[in-house]
């Protein structure tokens, strides 16, 4: 009944196997992570000292734009979908995803989308240069001609995400092993279920806003053109109605990962499982009613300003609950600090720091000083890099032995962690200071007053980049020559994925397992 993978390239082109597709998503995201990282290093190299050295402003703006787009849509989101593909069927005791052919399709359109997006850099007039938030009219009337390709690429990415989400929801609702009730699901499955709903709700909004742009650019409409009776602020409302849930899309699965790893290495069950589920759902709900906190300086009426301030502050409550639960899980545990645990602990600490600056940004009057400065850059990198990137890294170290059957080298893993940890803080911590001191974001040059901290940031960025090369080396050497891992891998980990052999066979749970 069970049969192995096909041979050669066709295995990957035509595969409907959730493990193959998960692997492809993960490698694709890894490649995009390096590409987005190179763009980031161009930015940091230019900002190493005042004056224009490496690139001129036109190129610099394309770098900031592409860095954001590639990291959000190319690195973080596909990585989480890849993890979902690998893990969700195994975690719920299903033989595969519910819609395997669509699974293949939702992956394989991505390389085309990103090839198109990156190719704009070589087009006449350059690539997108209006920031990853592409505010109109800079992205419409004043955009380079390549913007049309950008719009098409975003459409494809959106289609991919929606298909991925439908697949995940269908799998979770229809394919759970008998006895696996909703409140017995691992938190990673729960957080992904909620994330998938967020994606289905907001990706069409993104598609809508880029379509309105397309209309404005090519078909003479004036959705966002004040001269034609349109409204540039409307763009921001629609964009952030997508954009704010989007940032939770990039963090909720991370909550699930950390909630799996911390109990394993604290040797103690997760504290407050059900409150974790409710907190995740509350965060997801609140994410829909806070979008305009990205627009406090746009000239909203005071009632709107107050509403969005209060709603935003409220998010601190469920997020706090999560952090307190993780800390209490560690409390009176029996802790060891393997690489996945180190990344997870760093996640909790640094994500909390990002949460603090988030709370500060929520205070609308203070936001008038923070808005569009490096303080904001520091804030969202503190939630996204330790949040999304560290959790994905933790997940790779935690589940890699299950995926490939080999154990990674603990010394190399820990080296990776410390270099990345130091690099990250060197890069992003000083940004709080320059931001508060008055440096605005998205500029290629600055006054000498900000030079010291920018120099530290740039050095940190290159260190962080080097750490990721170590990561790549660790992953490859584990797959190629790592020591054989046991089936359990860790000491008494929880979850169905640990009950199958290492490496996980091509087909798992062809017969549903028993769940107590």
């Amino acid at each position, binding site marked *: 009944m069970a049969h192995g993978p096909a041979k050669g390239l066709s295995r990957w082109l035509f595969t409907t196997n959730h493990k193959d597709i998960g692997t492809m998503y993960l490698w694709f995201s890894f490649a995009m992570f390096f590409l987005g990282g190179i763009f980031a290093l161009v930015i940091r190299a230019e900002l190493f000292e005042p004056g224009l050295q490496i690139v001129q402003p036109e190129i610099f703006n394309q770098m900031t734009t592409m860095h954001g787009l590639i990291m959000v849509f190319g690195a973080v989101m596909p990585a989480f979908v890849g993890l979902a593909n690998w893990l969700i069927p195994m975690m719920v005791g299903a033989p595969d995803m519910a819609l395997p052919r669509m699974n293949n399709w939702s992956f394989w359109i991505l390389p085309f989308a990103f090839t198109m997006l990156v190719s704009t850099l070589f087009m006449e007039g350059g690539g997108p240069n209006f920031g990853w938030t592409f505010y109109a009219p800079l992205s419409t009337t004043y955009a380079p001609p390549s913007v049309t390709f950008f719009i098409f690429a975003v459409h494809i990415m959106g289609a991919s995400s929606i298909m991925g989400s439908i697949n995940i929801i269908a799998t979770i609702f229809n394919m759970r092993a008998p006895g696996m009730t909703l409140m017995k699901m691992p938190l990673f499955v729960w957080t992904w279920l909620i994330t998938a709903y967020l994606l289905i709700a907001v990706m069409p909004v993104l598609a809508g806003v880029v379509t309105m742009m397309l209309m404005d650019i090519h078909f003479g409409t004036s959705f966002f053109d004040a001269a034609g009776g349109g409204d540039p602020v409307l763009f921001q409302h629609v964009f952030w109605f997508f954009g704010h849930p989007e940032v939770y899309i990039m963090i909720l699965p991370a909550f699930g990962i950390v909630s799996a790893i911390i109990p394993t290495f604290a040797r103690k069950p997760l*504290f*407050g499982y059900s409150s974790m589920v409710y907190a995740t759902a509350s965060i997801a709900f609140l994410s829909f009613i806070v979008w305009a906190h990205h627009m406090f300086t746009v000239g909203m009426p005071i009632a709107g300003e107050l509403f969005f301030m209060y709603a935003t502050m409220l998010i601190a409550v469920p997020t706090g609950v999560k952090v307190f639960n993780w800390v209490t899980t560690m409390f009176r545990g029996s802790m060891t600090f393997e690489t996945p645990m180190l990344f997870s602990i760093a996640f909790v600490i640094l994500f909390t720091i990002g949460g603090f600056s988030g709370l500060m940004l929520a205070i609308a009057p203070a936001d008038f000083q923070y808005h569009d400065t490096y303080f904001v850059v520091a804030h969202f990198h503190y939630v996204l890099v330790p949040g999304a990137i560290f959790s994905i890294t933790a997940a790779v170290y935690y589940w890699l032995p299950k995926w490939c059957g080999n154990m990674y080298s603990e010394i190399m893993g820990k080296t990776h962690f410390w270099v990345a940890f130091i690099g990250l803080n060197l890069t992003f911590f000083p940004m709080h200071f320059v931001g508060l001191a008055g440096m605005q974001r998205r*500029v290629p040059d600055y006054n000498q007053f900000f030079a010291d901290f920018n120099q530290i940031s740039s050095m940190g960025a290159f260190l962080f980049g080097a750490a990721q090369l170590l990561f790549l080396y660790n992953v490859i050497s584990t797959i190629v020559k790592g020591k054989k891992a046991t089936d359990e891998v860790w000491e008494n980990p929880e979850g169905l994925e640990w009950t199958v052999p290492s490496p996980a066979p091509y087909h798992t749970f062809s017969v549903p397992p028993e769940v107590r």
Partner: protein
Amino acid sequence: MLNIAIRPCAWLLSPAALMTLSSLSLADEAERSSINMPKGVTPVSLDIYGLHMDIFWWCVAIGIVVFGVMFYSMIVHRKSNGAKAANFHESTVLEVLWTVIPFAILIIMAWPATKSLIKLYDASESDIDIVVTGYQWKWKYEYFGQEVSFFSNLSTPQDQIQNLAPKGEHYLLEVDEHLVVPIKKKIRFLITSNDVIHAWWVPSLAVKKDAVPGYVNESWAYIEEPGIYRGVCAELCGKDHGFMPIVVEAVDDATYNTWLADRREAAKQLKALAKQTFTLDELIVRGEKVYGTACMACHGANGEGGVGKAIAGSPIANGPLAEHLDMVVNGSQQNALMAAFGGQLSEVDLAAVITFQRNRFGNSAGDLVQPVDVLKFKQGK
């Protein structure tokens, strides 16, 4: 400084550090901290600074508790210390407590924030109104009802930006024309844009408002102390987003009134100038200056082009004068990036820069444009 950056925990110590680190300043320059928000010189900015520090200390306090428990566990409850894992995993009391306490803290913070916001939003009953218009990449200031209006451009030379000359103290934070305002008057800023979205931000005044085409946003400042306050455009607005600073010069009432009278006089003279006839050399000297502030960013120092088309050898600069006038005065119909300069430059400056473009960079149209020609063109000939 390295130490501050390496360890996030050091963040907790930074306010102490900032008191010792805050930089020395020139007499008329506002003091700046290199690691914290400026207190500023308006009642609103002081309010905001207070809120900022309050919420910061709340975060520090919560951080100490959370990270305290966490590090205690990590040190004491480790397997290598022989710690045996407990098995508790639920407590409704705890969950309720750590929902209610943060909620209470939020209410404590929301109250003063609301009060400050209401104050910040009350731009009514102003003494002076100034219309601020964002352009790619400069600011225009109009003193409402005073017949004074001018553009304010970056004055940092290209040589400094391209690292050919040492950078001055106010590198990228200096402009040719300061926005001069009186102290102890309620100044209302009416902020809008001519092209894309910009944001007018002066940290010491705690004024940051987006300049949105088609909207007029309000903000205000009541400056307590005379001084020079520097700011920047905060919203990405294209290529030279980082190169359109703001300089506000706050002076006493008498100085302000003298300045205003001088500006009015200068505006009159400029109008008179438009009726004069200039020689080719006069126009070219003036035109070169205008080119530097208005055209060079896109068309290059030698007219070689860049974001904009090349002017050297261009069919427009070497073709019929009417088309050249049309392009500069009305902008391009095909490309929004080529703005209409008819409203941005005076007739004299328009005449000068067009003459300059037609006779330099190897262009040899050879003709010369007088301000009166420009005026006639604007009036439809």
